[in-house]
């Protein structure tokens, strides 16, 4: 056993003089950094500030007596996530154990930081997610049914969350809901743009290309801000909530990127597929919907999931139109003089949550890539 370890060390860390020198410098520095960070986390940091302001971090200024709506959203999101998993990942014992451990860790932390009731609700949501995961996997139901269910979930979240007004949405909930809504909205628009760019009709082709290239050459923040100020000019009589204006801006911006991904997918579909469909007298609609797009999208799904991460990270910019997303909520807490010394705690917490969600999305993208590669020729 020890010889194996020694051999591993030799091969990977001390194989050549340069490797040895590098290892001798890097390993102690790394060890010291990890120790210092761990010491700060476990001993020095005052995590009460995170526990005490968890409500604001998670939901911003959402009314406290309406929080059941937020919990409904959490439960729905868990169920949607579980259903999505059910399509691609087998709920084996190891996978379920990992899910249970993660849920237990989060619930335990919440119990310690906030209270037992919040912890129980977290456990219930996680359990719902697991049930959805196992149910979808074992029912072997049609992907389209599951996708329709996911869409219904998003609509339900919007319907349930909206009564107190869009202005009060905030925190991590806002970031997540915004990301999901924008990701869904960009898809049909991006597909249309990609098809438009290949259209035989010159005007459609020119407009699509111009749109895509324009959006790709300007910054996100500009588009979001621009849509935000232009909507009231276009419709002075109706006041469209900032959240919806912001969502429109994100969707219009990211649709151009979706279009480019989809276009690369369209180009990957062999010409013979189109000839076969044409020889069967299919019209352009059937050709695209039944033959070309399913194959093209399969190629680009990993990129599209990767883009969800871009949208999630880009959602931090909504503060410029006055919305309180997760990052902004953290800054709001620090604006309270009582918490002035707790900057590091809040930012480390934000970092950890962003890292966890970003990591999960990256992992999902990888899994999907492997999953889809198996079925293709």
């Amino acid at each position, binding site marked *: 056993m020890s010889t194996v370890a020694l051999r591993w060390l030799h091969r990977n860390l001390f194989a050549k003089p340069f490797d040895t020198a590098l290892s001798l410098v890097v390993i102690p520095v790394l060890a010291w950094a990890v120790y210092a960070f761990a010491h700060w986390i476990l001993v020095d940091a005052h995590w009460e500030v995170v526990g005490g302001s968890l409500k604001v971090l998670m939901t911003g200024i959402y009314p406290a007596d309406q929080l059941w709506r937020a919990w409904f959203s959490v439960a729905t999101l868990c169920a949607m996530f579980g259903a999505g998993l059910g399509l691609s990942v087998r709920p084996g014992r190891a996978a379920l154990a990992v899910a249970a451990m993660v849920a237990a860790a989060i619930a335990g932390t919440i119990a310690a930081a906030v209270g037992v009731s919040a912890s129980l609700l977290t456990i219930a949501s996680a359990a719902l997610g697991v049930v959805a995961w196992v149910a979808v996997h074992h029912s072997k139901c049609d992907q389209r049914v599951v996708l329709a269910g996911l869409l219904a979930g998003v609509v339900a979240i919007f319907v349930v969350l909206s009564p107190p007004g869009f202005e009060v949405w905030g925190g991590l909930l806002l970031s997540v809901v915004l990301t999901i809504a924008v990701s869904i909205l960009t898809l049909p628009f991006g597909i249309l743009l990609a098809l438009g760019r290949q259209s035989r009709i010159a005007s459609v082709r020119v407009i699509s290309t111009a749109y895509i290239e324009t959006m790709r050459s300007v910054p996100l923040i500009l588009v979001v801000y621009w849509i935000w100020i232009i909507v009231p000019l276009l419709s002075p009589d109706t006041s469209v909530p900032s959240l919806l204006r912001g969502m429109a801006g994100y969707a219009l911006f990211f649709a151009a990127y979706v279009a480019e991904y989809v276009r690369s997918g369209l180009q990957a579909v062999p010409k013979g*597929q189109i000839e076969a469909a044409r020889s069967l007298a299919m019209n352009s609609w059937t050709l695209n919907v039944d033959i070309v797009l399913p194959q093209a999208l399969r190629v680009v799904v990993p990129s599209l999931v990767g883009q969800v991460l871009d949208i999630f990270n880009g959602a931090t910019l909504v503060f410029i139109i006055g919305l309180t997303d997760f990052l902004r909520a953290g800054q709001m807490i620090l604006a309270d003089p009582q918490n002035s010394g707790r900057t590091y705690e809040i930012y480390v917490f934000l970092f950890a949550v962003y890292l966890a969600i970003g990591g999960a999305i990256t992992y999902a993208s990888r899994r999907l890539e492997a999953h889809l590669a198996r079925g293709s020729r």
Partner: protein
Amino acid sequence: MNAIQIPEVTTSPNVIVSISRLNKSFGAFHVLKDIDLDVGRGEVVVIIGASGSGKSTLIRCVNGLEMYQSGRLTVDGFNMPTEADREIGGEKELARIRKGVGMVFQQFNLFPHMSAIDNVAIAPIRVRGRKPDEAKATALRLLDRVGLRDHAHKLPAQLSGGQQQRVAIARSLAMEPHIMLFDEPTSALDPEMVGEVLDVMRELAREGMTMMIVTHEMGFAREVADRVVYIDHGRILEIGTPAEIFDRPTHERTKTFLSRVLRH
């Protein structure tokens, strides 16, 4: 289903494909030169020739996958639009013609994301408006006919080349075509799978299906063809019965070509 068919050209009703003085170029390259060819209903016409001679291009013109510049091409009484026509439309005519013309490709071109049965059923459902249940029942019958009933729910990637090509034939048959085009259907197959595909084609010929076949399988051509067409450098050099072409070719070029392909 079909609208009233008024053939504009006075061809005999027994002629399904009528080609006269057809010319086709890819840019400056003149691929087909003054092609004249009539195919009768129920006839099996095999087109042979060296690679690059234009034989595939010719049958691809018959269902409009390639556009021609001049001449006349009618299929089932419909005029095939020329390249100039298609710049301003012609989609409807094309779709009408294609409904009656089946095509089998060298590379099979099955839809990889659909099971065999869905491959066969999709066009009847989407193009002819059949009910999914009926279309699938028909598809299963067709798969049975090509000997693949047990493989109906497999994806193309799970089938061998010969099986894929047989699914492709069933897929074309599902549209109930009046004529089938075969573009080198066995050229991409391993030698041991050629036979199973040729058997299916032989069966089709015996049932009276009109077929235009581009192939290098000379033994098969001699056996099933009513007429053999030899194309050389985009021109039809000889047309005749298999016996005439294979045993008594008149052109020196035909002789050279045959001596080259028949030797092995």
